[in-house]
């Protein structure tokens, strides 16, 4: 299907362009403006050039060290999240019932965590994992494992990861389920006639057909875990120490906590650029996958 060339279509896009530009470009310009200045409060600003960026990208400086620590922490977190949630999500999607009232029940229950405000997610787990009044903490402690997410860095990480798995695996599962639903029955029937094993059906039919939704799932989960703020902030506040201070948390600390506007702005820009770059890679891969598919269908 070739679309007609029509530059008047810009008039239809203009409102969106205007409102998003107002929301995105204007603030970003403020950020750029801050990033090249220094302030000692009282709304007095001094030109600082690329000083903040130099400091930020130099691991030996205080700001740079802090930035790279938070960056690695965030990347590690995203990697762990993907490694758990993607396979688990696929498994859950494959375990969805085929028909009947249980389908609707599973869908509703699975979607529930997605609709809970993020700070409430933090609160739920804050309570649930406490050793004194939380079921999880109490059970784990009574199993003889010394567990305290506010004191021990490893426990804090484990809790945040389990919380994120709880919060977001359903998104992966629902995406995969939708991908699986779009496979015509004839494929499964043909596979049965060909004598394919369960594993062969998964490898040769289900996985290839889920390729696109999986790509989107990976993209969304990577982005959202890379930007995670509210849930760990509520749960651990970035601690113990700085053990769970992810990039977003660090950024908000800098900007709204210490009012280090210049540093925060420089960090924001670098942060944004990283995300933009990753986003672009995914977008390119995705359009290629789409183009591949269209060529096949044509």
């Amino acid at each position, binding site marked *: 299907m070739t679309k007609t060339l029509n530059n008047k279509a810009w008039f239809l896009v203009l409102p969106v362009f205007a*409102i998003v530009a107002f*929301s995105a470009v*204007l603030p970003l310009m403020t950020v750029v403006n801050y990033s090249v200045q220094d302030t000692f409060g009282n709304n007095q600003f001094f030109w600082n050039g690329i000083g903040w960026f130099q400091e930020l990208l130099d691991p030996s400086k205080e700001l740079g060290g802090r930035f790279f620590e938070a960056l690695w922490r965030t990347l590690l977190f995203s990697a762990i999240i993907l490694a758990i949630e993607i396979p688990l999500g696929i498994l859950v999607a494959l375990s969805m019932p085929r028909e009947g009232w249980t389908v609707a029940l599973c*869908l509703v229950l699975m979607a529930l965590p997605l*609709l*809970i405000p993020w700070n409430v997610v933090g609160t739920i787990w804050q309570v649930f994992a406490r050793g004194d009044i939380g079921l999880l903490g109490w059970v784990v402690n009574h199993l003889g494992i010394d567990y305290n997410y506010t004191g021990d860095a490893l426990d804090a990480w484990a809790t945040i990861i389990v919380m994120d798995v709880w919060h977001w695996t359903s998104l992966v599962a629902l995406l995969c389920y*939708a991908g699986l639903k779009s496979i015509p029955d004839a494929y499964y029937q043909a596979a049965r006639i060909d004598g394919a094993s369960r594993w062969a059906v998964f490898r040769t039919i289900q996985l290839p057909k889920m390729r696109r939704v999986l790509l989107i799932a990976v993209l969304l989960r990577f982005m959202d875990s890379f930007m995670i703020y509210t849930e760990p902030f509520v749960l651990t506040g970035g601690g113990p120490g700085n053990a769970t201070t992810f990039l*977003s948390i660090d950024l908000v600390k800098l*900007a709204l906590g210490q009012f280090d506007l210049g540093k925060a702005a420089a960090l924001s820009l670098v*942060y944004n650029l990283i995300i933009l770059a990753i986003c672009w890679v995914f977008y390119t891969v995705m359009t290629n996958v789409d183009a591949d598919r269209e060529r096949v269908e044509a």
Partner: protein
Amino acid sequence: MTDTIAIGTADRKDAKTGTVAANRALAGPRVNGKAVVMTLYLVFLMLPIYWLVNMSLKTNTEITSGLTLWPRQITFDNYIRIFTDQSWYSGYINSLTYVVINTVLSISFALPAAYAFSRYRFLGDKHLFFWLLTNRMAPPAVFALPFFNLYSAIGLFDTPWAVALAHCLFNIPLAVWILEGFMSGVPREIDETAAIDGYSFPRFFVKIFMPLIASGIGVAAFFCFMFSWVELLLARTLTTVNAKPIAATMTRTISASGMDWGMLAAAGVLTIVPGALVIWFVRNYIAKGFALGRV
């Protein structure tokens, strides 16, 4: 010789029946295996929520005095206090206000744009689309401070409009993305037929086109609602008193006399309710929305 053949055949038959039995055996536990995985997963999902509900129905004394799997003495005091205290329930009204404003804004802005993207090529369309998408991916933390300055400057600070507009940053791109997918599924002949039948563009769009993509609008509205409802960083940064969202009000439960756990849990339960209701109404469309892979 005849005997041998007969035995041979019998053997083969047995072998076949054996395969069938083996297949059955394989099929049996597999169905169970699925159910086990699903049940375990759902239990994992429900446990923390159950615990929250459980706590919300207890008194603070019971919560702090020891672990009980269900309330020994059910109390609705926590809920009653939330519904009678104006500063509590106004949090709900504030949240719902900006969520609804945002959903309406996002959908009405996104509709024409999505139409343009699905029907026409125009100068810079691909770059524009990508740029819109990057805003869905932009970390709210980056925008918190500039938004604070921006909305203070134009006098919208601490109003639902500030939050609603701020959430447009990620919800409009999302809505455009979802709607574009649905619109591309509508054959272009419909547009042409309507034009030949003498419909003006706005009339065609409202009378014919929108009903055709009604389910798409529903799905997009659902996701706008969802992401606006769950976001808190921007919502809290842009409000102080008058437009404070419910989720932020929850911090009030930390008082001088320690945590009011029961209240916290009750408020948490109440923030889950609108989401649960929305899911229940759109449960049949969820899979469809996800099927487009555009969330």
